[in-house]
């Protein structure tokens, strides 16, 4: 095939044909130190494995993982889909912090040291970087993550002022990637705590002027595994790839529980 790479981001060009003839795109080598787990080939022990691949200017960590999978070891397993930070599939621990692999640019990491890549903490590992998301979604489902209304539906839309809409805007951004919940030391201890993501999604409805279910949700979150277990550690806020002010949202839910004002 006689196609030429024109673009600066040759995300799949690991072939020698690229050969550096263009010279326009800076390339550099990165080493990934990946926490692996494969019960079929390595039994019940996780282990570390290192891979070195060549990266280009705008490559993301996801591109490097793809290079490993596509050119070196096809058995390396991880989830991904949209590859630009909106689907929430590829949350993982990158150099000890929860990030989406598709939102971390390799050039922003220190290339002199191996980049450590691990599965999310606090959720059961199923294979390599793939964790069991069911406990996470179970907590989400428990907080009634849907609009609750009473009476007849209006003929047209429900009215809501721009200010009322703004009140819960931040928490509508959640993509359920679990980066927050699995960064929370309280969640790590026993996995019983609802976790930040569930509370974020409760917040999204509690502060929606159209919703009538706030009292029920607050009752659910008043549980001993509910909001009171939050120790305002801010790991969740730091981990959120959508920039949601999660700790603030949790504080607002706590306050609503006391004041019953929402």
């Amino acid at each position, binding site marked *: *095939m*006689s*196609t030429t790479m*024109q*673009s*600066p*981001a040759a995300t*799949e060009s690991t072939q020698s044909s690229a050969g550096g003839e263009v010279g*326009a795109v800076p390339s550099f080598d990165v080493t990934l130190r990946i926490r692996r787990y*494969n019960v*079929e080939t390595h039994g019940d022990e996780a282990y570390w494995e290192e891979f070195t691949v060549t990266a280009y200017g*705008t490559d*993301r960590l996801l591109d490097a993982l*793809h290079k490993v*999978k*596509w*050119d070196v*070891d*096809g058995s390396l*397993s*991880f989830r*991904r*889909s*949209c*590859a*630009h*930070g*909106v*689907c*929430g*599939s590829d949350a993982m621990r990158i150099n000890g912090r929860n990030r989406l692999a598709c939102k971390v640019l390799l050039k922003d990491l220190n290339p002199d040291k191996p980049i450590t890549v691990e599965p999310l903490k606090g959720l059961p590992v*199923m*294979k*390599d970087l*793939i964790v069991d*998301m069911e406990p996470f*979604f179970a907590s989400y*489902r428990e907080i*009634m*993550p*849907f*609009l609750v209304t009473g009476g007849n539906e*209006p003929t*047209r*839309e*429900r*009215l*809501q*002022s*721009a200010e*009322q*809409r703004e009140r*819960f805007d931040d928490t*509508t*951004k*959640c993509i*359920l990637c679990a980066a927050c919940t699995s960064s929370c030391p309280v969640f790590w201890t026993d996995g019983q705590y609802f976790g930040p993501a569930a509370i974020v999604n409760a917040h999204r409805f509690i502060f*929606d002027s*159209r*919703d009538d279910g706030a009292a029920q949700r607050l009752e659910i979150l008043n549980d001993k595994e509910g909001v009171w277990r939050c120790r305002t550690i801010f790991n969740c806020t730091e981990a959120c790839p959508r920039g949601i002010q999660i700790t603030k949202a949790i504080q607002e839910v706590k306050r609503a529980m006391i004041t019953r004002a929402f």
Partner: protein
Amino acid sequence: MQTHQYDVVIVGAGGAGMRAALESSKRTRTAVISKLYPTRSHTGAAQGGMCAALANVEEDNWEWHTFDTVKGGDYLVDQDAAEVMAKEAIDAVLDLEKMGLPFNRTPEGKIDQRRFGGHTRNHGEAAVRRSCYAADRTGHMILQTLYQQCVKNDVEFFNEFYVLDVLLSHDLTTGEVADGEEVAVSGVVAYELATGEIHLFKAKSVVFATGGAGKIYKTTSNAQTLTGDGMALAFRRGIPLEDMEFFQFHPTGLAGLGILLSEAARGEGGILRNSDGERFMERYAPTIKDLAPRDIVARSMANEVREGRGAGPNKDYVLLDLTHLEPAHIDAKLPDITEFARTYLGIEPYTEPVPVYPTAHYAMGGVPTNILGEVLRNNSDTVRGLYAAGEVACVSVHGSNRLGTNSLLDINVFGKRAGIAAAEYAVGADWVETPQDPEGGVVAELERMRTLPSGERVAHVRRDLQNTMDANAQVFRTEESLRQALADIAALQERYRHVSVQDKGKVFNTDLLEALELGFLLDIAEVVVVGALNRQESRGGHFREDFPQRDDAGYMKHTMAYRRPAASGDRPHSEAPSGPGTSAPGTFDIVLDYKPVIMTRYEPMERKY
């Protein structure tokens, strides 16, 4: 193997699938099978909005919306379907609001609306505010809202299950099933990703809502997982694919990356400029300029680059200029896409124009359906119990070029229709017996692929496919380029016979999954190219430089592509399974036929903006 039985099985859990599930599950026993967790579906990446003539901010009506849709599709739209969509758009938006979708609001508290490409007042007079939106996250909000409603209504999901075959009462690939004969669906075969186990789902109705196939191209806004699965599964079972040569290239992908920057950027006032700083769309579409439909804008951009007016060191992109907009306005209306520019290109859109270039975005074609969502197996007969909605389907509301926002509309209107129709049919229908050894073909192919000791890597074949499609079947096409693409695909199909996966395991074997997906991509790419070669005219998203005019006398008709046994028996034969429902390169031909376009109100006119 595990066997399940549901009245309705919905394949895919994006917008169309979940909208269908909400209707079906309240009527009858329903399961949704998805290769992803529902909230990972690519509906969530849609940005700009969903059009409906609510007339919340200015005069509008559904007839204008119908006209724009027909004209936008360069008159290849089935006008009855477009009218259904434009009329039902209003309730579709109101339904979502009642489900809780957080739309942006007008000062009066109503759903706010903004301008979008090709949507006009009174048949093209000027751009109209028709798109209902939630910042530049409308798709995200739709996906989340539909999932929330599925949680509320206890919809049953089989997540990370990959459907690999659809079971029919007849083998349609022979081409020998008579017109009028009753053909029915009896279920699907799925592969559970976590365990490698095979599941048989018996069903009276099956709804395909599996999305698009953007990964046939290298530069695409589509997710890694959009590999044309549903289209290819139907095609392999002898069901035709309609109008596959029409692929939409979205004008504003981040240059070099293909990541989508919503048309809303231009709806909010953004301007495309070439290397001279010229607002070049004034030359190509003097009335609505940057808000011309996507096919026109994408071609104009590619033409600017081709004629040497591209920007950047390699002069290979143009610039999307937002610098004249207030930063607060950008933050309120376009927060995500400006964040993409910062994250991935290091560009600050407040002060710098953003490099953009067309990116493969949307398949206008797909599995043919009527306006109830019933799948057609020829120009008139439906497959009993089989439905399709969303990007996988071709109803055809998009004709040869989809207008922006009409995909979010399509999934809601026709997802709902398909869900209702599938459930109502299932309630009254008898069970159809599944074939003998229903999973046999799938198991054989999986085993063959998993056990091939060594061979070429899947990723390399896929990369070469994507490169040839970008080079030869993109915005500009010629007979020569398409013949090159077709020859390349034939060679790649031969290579595909010998790819092997390294992961031999059963647990989350995504290596194997990618190999299967590649088979689908190759099938779909071939149909796209064969259709494009055959259509010797330029219409909508399909532009032939050797036939630059629209030819209504010759081609005002839908292409119908069928998989039929190869005419020549001298093709190379391998030990690969070659029955219906499997990837069997070389043992089948693509046979083309046509279907008339349904016209109701609008006579074709020259398409000027």
